[in-house]
């Protein structure tokens, strides 16, 4: 065992000194990027399109000759929303696949558990799908984020809705977990700026299907505006319940309910529902030329229509490609993060926001916009709310 151990140490040192010449995951012809996704767990519905979107952006870059002559390779590990699997996946990607950076890891428990070993290994932790503040603050040289906490979006969105519609009693229906609490903080902050209280709030447990008591309670409180901190299925169930009982109150759902599935499942009942969105859903009808081409290629490549998560995956990977491109041929972690800190991207063909990073601001965008379901699809109503 002792001999084995010594042999191993010697091999390790040899490998380390060979690698010191170049950043891990960067070879003459290739850049390897890792991602820990949920492809089999409770949020696989998000994980699969995110992965496909990223893969497509990398394929596009590779088809155009790669980044400064290097092809991009995406290595995806499925953690199934289990932090234990996530930690092992992070170790595997660091050590075995020697990835250069981690891109768009998915799910708060997985992200929180894997972030320390990733940054300890000196790998950039880029744009995770988790609204947790610690993914970008306090500032850490290797942590970058492009998805603001729900609090930021919902603060501005609530204020905008109350100011433009003159609601008197704003209420909240929320999922009783970290997601719901984040939204509540945002709604309360927005109302506080207008010197109004939150008139009524009521919660539900994740996975609930019956919202009759919650809706009755909100109606009883005389709410004229209800914010929904719900996900797709619960959004449909809550709005349908209100309409079924003849209550035509205005409702605003967070970005988690902004999905094509909401109007596909909800049909007529969810017509008129407001939603907060960061990236618009890529609808085929009425798409601009570039977007229509992207949708066609996505459909051909993966056999399904893209959704907003596919667009997010594509955008995340696009930011990586742009930053790597900015660095030039001599790609190291320091040079990459320095390039990212000066990156400013314009609006893209999805109609997404500008992303702007700086030395002191590692969160690329804090703004969302308001949309509404009209004629069975989301229509964007406002620009990004500052």
């Amino acid at each position, binding site marked *: 065992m002792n001999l084995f151990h010594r042999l191993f140490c010697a091999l390790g040192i040899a490998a380390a000194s060979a690698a010191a010449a170049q950043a891990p995951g960067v070879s003459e012809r290739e850049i390897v990027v890792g991602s820990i996704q949920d492809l089999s767990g409770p949020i696989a519905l998000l994980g699969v399109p995110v992965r496909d979107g990223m893969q497509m952006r990398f394929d596009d870059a590779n088809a155009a000759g790669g980044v400064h002559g290097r092809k991009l390779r995406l290595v995806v*590990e499925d953690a199934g929303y289990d932090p234990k699997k996530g930690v*092992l996946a992070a170790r595997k990607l660091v050590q*075995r696949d020697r990835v250069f950076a981690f891109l768009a890891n998915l799910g708060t*428990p997985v992200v929180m558990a894997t972030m320390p070993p990733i940054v300890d290994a000196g790998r950039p932790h880029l744009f995770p799908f988790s609204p947790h503040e610690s993914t970008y603050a306090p500032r850490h040289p290797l942590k970058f984020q492009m998805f603001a906490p729900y609090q930021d979006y919902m603060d501005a969105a609530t204020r905008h809705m109350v100011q433009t519609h003159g609601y008197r009693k704003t209420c909240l229906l929320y999922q009783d977990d970290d997601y719901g609490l984040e939204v509540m903080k945002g709604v309360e902050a927005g109302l506080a700026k207008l010197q109004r209280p939150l008139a009524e709030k009521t919660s539900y447990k994740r996975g609930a299907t019956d919202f009759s008591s919650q809706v009755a309670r909100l109606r009883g409180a005389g709410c004229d505006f209800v914010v929904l901190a719900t996900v797709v299925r619960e959004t449909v169930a809550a709005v349908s319940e209100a309409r079924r009982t003849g209550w035509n109150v205005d409702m605003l759902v967070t970005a988690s309910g902004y999905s094509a599935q909401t109007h596909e499942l909800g049909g007529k009942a969810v017509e008129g529902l407001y939603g907060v969105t960061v990236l618009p859903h890529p609808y085929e009808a009425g798409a601009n030329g570039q977007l229509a081409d992207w949708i066609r290629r996505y459909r051909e490549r993966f056999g399904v229509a893209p959704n907003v998560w596919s667009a997010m995956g594509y955008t995340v990977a696009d930011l990586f490609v742009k930053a790597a491109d900015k660095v030039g041929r001599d790609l190291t972690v320091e040079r990459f993060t320095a390039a990212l800190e000066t990156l400013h991207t314009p609006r893209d063909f999805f109609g997404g926001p500008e992303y702007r990073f700086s030395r002191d601001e590692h969160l690329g965008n804090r703004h969302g916009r308001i949309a509404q379901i009209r004629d069975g699809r989301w229509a964007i109503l406002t620009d990004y709310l500052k």
Partner: protein
Amino acid sequence: MDGAHGSPSRPGFAAWAVIMALAALAVWVLGVDYALAQAAFVATWAIAGLGVVLVVGQCGQVSLGQGALLGLGAYAQAVFALRGVPAQLSLPLAIALGAGGGWLASLPARRLGGLYFAMSTLAFALVVEEALVRWESLTRGAAGLAVPPLALGGWVAETPLAQALVACVALALAWLACRRWAASRLGRAWRAVREDEIAAAAAGIDVARAKTLAFVLGGGLSGLGGALYAHWIGFVSPEQFGLMLSFELLMLAFIGGARHLSGALWGALVVVALPQGVSLAVERLPPGLAGAAGIEMALFGAVLVILVLLRPGGLAGSR
């Protein structure tokens, strides 16, 4: 071996050889840190698994709430560590809390049996998860708690090597304790209760006490496993200790062989390491197939079915 009678068994030389060979292969193929991180999780899960083996395998009670006991240990450790309580003190407290939770969960066993009692443990798990969400001042609710690395005196277990070492030492101690219990008068009482409660009572065994002790000791082991898990993961949130975890632990015990102490280790190897093996195997598949969503889960499921068919008594079982 004595598996059919359910007395404590030790993995034989061949089993140890297989485990050592697997470990060497893992280090060779995966790299040291990745393999050691796995070893830490396997050992930690084996400790929790021993708890299930005591309750389910030795005493014959079905517990659907073991994940909640793990959660109690994890949260106790997290809360104490964040308040600067040294691990030498907080680890025993986490174990005590797990044991206390086990005692609470076992109370309905005085009146209920079989499936009804299993349902009460399920309810217990739900209550604990709900309490972890609601008691925000202590647990920060659903937002979760970041847990600092394990510090024993001046030594901090930050590297995978240190974590694996701590987990293996804890597992060894837990193992020795379980062997003692299973070989004692108490162990014989457990097995008598498992085979036939009425006969056991007729033979003068205090059935309620035997069940309670199984839950208390099993709960303590789960608490220890949870405390270590909290450090290895570095972040605890209530959803991690939901029913899925309880089912995973139950699966661990049955796959490994609930009637044998070594079943906990085999089960932990399957539950923790097998998905990693599957993930490596999937990389070898053609890209179209390897990219299919959920393929790893499907393959893992298939391997489990095969294991159960070939070894219905668990991997540690005689057949």
